[in-house]
């Protein structure tokens, strides 16, 4: 089956699975190049959520009636799908959250708040999304921990030679982004994890920008935690997850307290439910979780390696075409290191907001702004940029149309 799909891999056919591409934007067929912000949803995910609400809707873990049982099984099954997708040994190592940001907050509160002490150090990189910076600043202010930052060179790669100097027995956590949502750079997380392990630090991988695009195996990486957002991998908004090593999750304190996360409650004390429910307090996003499971099914059906190869081809094509024009300034992509399909750029003399606005008039969706990574932007002397980011349904023809429009933008403003 997989071989068959590989042989007929065709983004135009894949596009037909996504209802949004039937619509027009400003009188033009939608060209969606803002996949690093969020991805479109296939019919199967939309139908899955629709089907859940029409036929099964009920609360989980709370009843013996048929609907409750079905909902519980479907929700647990979604955890299993995510676990298999990233190579986790046990589905109890998967905790559903709202998104990657909430996942990191859960770890900052559940692990960091109780396990870190004054003088302990957390190492991040300057490439981080705000979601992997601000929670640690909260812990710095609350607990007196120190945040160390690994920088990037002028090619957009991490300065790995500086890594050993930033690691010591004081380093309790290394929390790093796998693929940059600004530069597209894929960081050597396996190597960094090995270095971190030498000093006994735990490793947290922010995989929000990589899980949808690159085959991932948490055991091969060797990390302790990995987080991602469902909506960036064809799933619905409002659902994300944490992978955590079972012994660490068992040792951790809860993040939120209340319903469903308990084993036994008296008026004076309570004990905690088993994994992963200990960390999923209250009625969770059941439909969202089940929808994420459907998204994983869809991705696995296409094959992550196929997705990666297609995006790699689009990326190379776009970089080659865009570099023909000296008025397009591309950030990053200045070395042969591995990248995902993200290109941040500026058009000389045109504010990125205006670039995005003019593209929108042609039905082309791109992002403009600081991409929730202000420290990186500042470090690379980037003010604000436009950004195009690919997914499996994009085509070379769409890139051509985008560049044709950029030429018109340049002419109009130039």
């Amino acid at each position, binding site marked *: 089956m997989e071989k068959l799909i590989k042989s007929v891999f065709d983004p135009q056919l894949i596009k037909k699975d996504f209802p949004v591409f039937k619509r027009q934007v400003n009188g033009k067929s939608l060209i969606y190049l803002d996949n690093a912000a969020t991805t479109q949803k296939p019919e199967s995910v939309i139908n899955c959520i629709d089907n859940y609400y029409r036929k099964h809707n009920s609360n989980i873990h709370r009843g013996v009636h048929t609907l409750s049982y079905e909902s519980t099984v479907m929700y647990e099954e979604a955890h299993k799908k995510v676990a298999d997708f990233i190579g986790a040994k046990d589905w109890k190592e998967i905790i559903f959250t709202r998104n990657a940001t909430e996942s990191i907050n859960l770890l900052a509160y559940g692990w960091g708040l109780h396990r870190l002490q004054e003088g302990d150090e957390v190492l991040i990189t300057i490439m981080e999304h705000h979601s992997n910076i601000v929670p640690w600043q909260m812990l710095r202010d609350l607990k007196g921990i120190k945040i160390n930052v690994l920088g990037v060179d002028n090619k957009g790669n991490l300065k790995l030679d500086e890594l050993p100097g930033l690691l010591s027995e004081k380093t309790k956590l290394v929390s790093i982004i796998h693929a940059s949502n600004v530069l597209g750079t894929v960081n050597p997380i396996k190597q960094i994890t090995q270095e971190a392990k030498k000093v006994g630090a735990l490793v947290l991988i922010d995989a929000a920008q990589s899980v949808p695009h690159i085959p991932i195996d948490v055991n091969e990486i060797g990390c302790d935690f990995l987080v991602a957002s469902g909506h960036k991998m064809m799933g619905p908004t409002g659902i994300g997850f944490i992978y955590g090593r079972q012994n660490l999750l068992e040792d951790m304190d809860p993040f939120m307290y209340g319903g469903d996360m308990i084993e036994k409650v008296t008026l004076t004390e309570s004990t905690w439910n088993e994994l992963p429910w200990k960390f999923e307090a209250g009625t969770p996003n059941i439909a969202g979780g089940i929808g994420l499971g459907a998204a994983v099914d869809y991705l696995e059906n296409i094959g992550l390696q196929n997705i990666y190869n297609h995006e790699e081809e689009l990326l190379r094509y776009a970089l080659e075409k865009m570099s023909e024009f000296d008025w397009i300034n591309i950030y990053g992509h200045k070395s042969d290191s591995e990248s995902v399909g993200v290109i941040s750029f500026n058009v000389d003399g*045109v*504010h*990125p*907001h*205006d670039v995005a*606005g003019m593209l*929108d*008039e042609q039905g082309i969706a791109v992002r*403009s*702004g*600081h991409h929730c990574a202000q420290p990186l932007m500042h470090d690379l002397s980037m*003010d*604000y940029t436009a950004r195009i980011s690919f997914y499996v349904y994009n085509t070379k023809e769409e890139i051509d149309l985008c560049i044709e429009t950029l030429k018109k933008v340049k002419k*109009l*403003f130039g």
Partner: protein
Amino acid sequence: MQSESLDYILDHYKNPRNFGTIEDADFSYEEGIPSCGDVIRLDLKIRDNKLDDVKFSGTGCAISQASVSILTENVTGKEIGDVISLTDHDMLEALGGQVSPIRFKCALLGLTVLKKALAGIKSDS
């Protein structure tokens, strides 16, 4: 956007009117949009309850910069009371009424800053 309206905005973007600062301004106010980075500062000189001189500075996209340029032209010499009663609709009309709702935030930043500057005048007097 129709080309007439776009040309008008591009003209103000490329040739901003009243761009600069006023050294001895009576009131100044600066505000930005954190999500997109646009920043506008307005310096005001008041005489006889009228806006005698208005200068703006800042950075941002064509819509935000053109709209504040147009705004300064429209309010210079006007009574403060008249300026305070300007509505968002007035501002969008002044831009040609063609700005898409997606860009309203950009288009209205200048007016917001001006009104906040004038609020400073009212509370001082």
